[in-house]
């Protein structure tokens, strides 16, 4: 991983390139027209599994639910040998301890949302406290939300400062910055917010909380990947990407990987630099893998739902 230490400086957002929505739609259609077959497909499916942040972010979450989720993370489908484990489980801060216990002895990361997720509508102090609490409980990845209201009001400096502060509060934990693109609405804003977040020190940028529709789209993700690429061109620092919400089937996940590959190249094709935030994706990928192995179309009844 790149260890370049960059000064955190507010970027000049007026210099960020504009984005043409129709052009983005056309590009996305091209990725979707790629035909991924045979070994390429099997590899893509396995890679997808390894990139999943298996997520539960419900008001009804309990320790029991989280423990079940961690079991799933460790045992995706034991009937099929040679599968990777997922990259992380992603839970609320008060569930981090449960996840840490459940996952001890594995290399599955523990991601926690923080900063008054999902709305972010609280004071900075509380957001920082939320972050520290999650880190202290064992989270090594923090998924923060930006203040969309401040961003839409044009208070970019406030958004920047908040990310810098949260990054500081994260200590060694990786920071994923959620833009909540469904509330930013335009790709121009997505691009600007991406640039802002990266300059403020984000290790990853992430599309969505999953609580707002639309969540991740390929259009938004492409826009963010292109921002990541430009930032890398400029600084040499790699930033990761996490589309989250709405990616529920294997075919769509493969389209994302095609897009990732053709936009950022080989270096990003690992869980270190790309994650899917998803809850139901894993089983569909497993079904497709089983289909590839056996040649027989599968039923959801044969795959565990946790």
């Amino acid at each position, binding site marked *: 991983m790149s260890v370049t230490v960059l000064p955190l400086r507010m970027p000049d957002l007026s210099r960020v*390139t*504009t*984005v*043409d929505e*129709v*052009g*983005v739609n*056309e*590009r996305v259609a091209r990725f979707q*027209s*790629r*035909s*991924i*077959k*045979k*070994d*390429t*497909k099997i*590899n893509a499916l396995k890679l997808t599994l390894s990139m999943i942040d298996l997520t539960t972010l419900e008001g009804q979450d309990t320790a029991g639910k989280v423990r079940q989720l961690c079991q799933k993370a460790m045992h995706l489908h034991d009937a099929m040998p040679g599968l990777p484990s997922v990259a992380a489980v992603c839970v609320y801060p008060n569930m981090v301890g449960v996840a840490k216990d459940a996952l001890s002895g594995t290399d599955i990361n523990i991601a926690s949302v923080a900063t008054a997720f999902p709305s972010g509508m609280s004071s900075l102090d509380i957001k920082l406290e939320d972050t520290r609490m999650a880190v202290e409980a064992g989270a090594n990845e923090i998924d923060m939300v930006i203040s969309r209201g401040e961003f839409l009001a044009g208070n970019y400096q406030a958004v920047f400062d908040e990310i810098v502060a949260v990054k500081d509060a994260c200590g060694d934990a990786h920071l994923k910055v959620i833009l909540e693109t469904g509330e930013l609405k335009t790709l121009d804003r997505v691009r600007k917010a991406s640039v802002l977040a990266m300059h403020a020190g984000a290790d990853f940028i992430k599309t969505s909380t999953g609580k707002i529709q639309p969540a991740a789209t390929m259009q938004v993700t492409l826009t963010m990947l*292109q921002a990541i*690429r*430009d930032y*890398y*061109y*400029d*600084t*040499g620092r790699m930033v990761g990407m996490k589309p989250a919400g709405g990616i529920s089937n294997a075919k769509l996940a493969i389209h994302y*990987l095609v897009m990732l*590959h*053709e936009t*950022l*190249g*080989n*270096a990003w*094709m690992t869980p270190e630099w790309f994650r899917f935030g998803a809850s139901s994706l894993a089983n569909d990928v497993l079904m497709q893998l089983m289909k590839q192995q056996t040649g027989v179309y599968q039923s959801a009844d044969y795959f565990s739902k946790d």
Partner: protein
Amino acid sequence: MAAPENTLAFNDGWSYAPAPESTDHVRIKSRYDLFINGEFVRPASGKTFDTLNPATEQKLASVAEAGPADVDKAVKAAREAYRKVWSKMKPAERGKYLYRIARIIQERAREFAVIESMDGGKPIREARDVDIPLAAAHFFYYAGWADKLEYAFPNRNAKPLGVAGQIIPWNFPLLMAAWKIAPALACGNTVVLKPAETTPLTALKLAEVVADAGLPPGVVNIVTGAGETGAEIVNHPGIDKIAFTGSTDVGRLIQKALAGTRKKYTLELGGKAANIIFADAPIDQAVEGIVNGIFFNQGHVCCAGSRLFVQESVADEVVAKLKDRMQTLIVGNPLDKNTDIGAINSKGQLETIRDYLKIGKGEGAELFQPSCKLPRKGFWVPPTLFTGVSQSNRIVQEEIFGPVLAIQTFRTFEEGLEKANNTPYGLSGGVWTDKGAKIFKMTQGLRAGVIWANTFNKFDPTSPFGGYKESGVGREGGLHGLDAYLKLED
């Protein structure tokens, strides 16, 4: 942003497993005859020529070579059909035949796409997603005009011309046939169409469709052959109208040959389109537009954006991004669904392009091609950029008709516009900027018939297409395309 110091790697990582389109459902006969008066007939001379798959250099079929007697027979059949049937038919009924053709093309779309790809070398993705659906759409569009012509030209009485001779190129074989045949028939004309000698198969397949649709014999006649056959059509006294798509040189010859004959004509000729990128453009979409502009259909596109003008302040960035993008273009088997750039259409065209690559290097231009493995058999040119060029270079002035882009920079709006217009051609142009007022100033200033603002190489049956200056005379497509096949009387 200056040229990036940090580069991305696309090769030797993930690569896509072959995804060939199935050819099981495709039937290609070993020999194709001429389609005259509703049936396939042998040419009088008995001569045939071979049509090859340019990706494999393998022969696909023998095709009849039409001589003077065959062309004469076709024209006479068209005249008879015009006089006795087609010009007398209720316009709504003419339209219904066109709807039928459109439907049958849709039903057989996959077969058409595969043959188009095999015969011409274009990627199956393009044949499948662009050529064939657009061809069907053209028939649908003009079908509806057949009984509405009185609304197209106010205060005029629109009458058909008679027999239209139509000569089409090899870059979009079926689509060009549709562009030509659909409006001609809708307007009440009958046709004699000659496909290009390297890509006759989909036109001959279209003849099957025409027969299946039950079109009266002689309304559509398809004669195959090379330039001599085309000349027979141009010079035949029984022809009332010539529609030609091809090079400016041949167009000029045709215009001269038609002098004094009072035959009506439309010419869709060459181009050397400017694609102009301003600093405030949506850069990533502009890069995509550049790629689409010059590498679509291997650059075998008369309206290709073959001259790129980038505003100096973003030139390094745009070129660097373009190069990275080009690393991801997949060149190879046209029938593979993931292929972006297929085979060059013919050996002759391959040599032309290679000559220009030499000329460009000789002129001191800097050549860039991404590393890509090309198949051993077949005709291939990797996507190519030339930087360090100027208006005085031949690779900037002349139409190459291949995947070769000449890149220049400009500083001001006026300089960009002046350089863009500094060409005898005027078919198309592109402009990329986020500023609306600037778009309109540029789109109004460019002397060309089709202007794409923040997009490139878009086509639609409702959208008139055709050039200014040496890029041609007349329009095809849309309401304006009807004019080419009608007399407008008081």
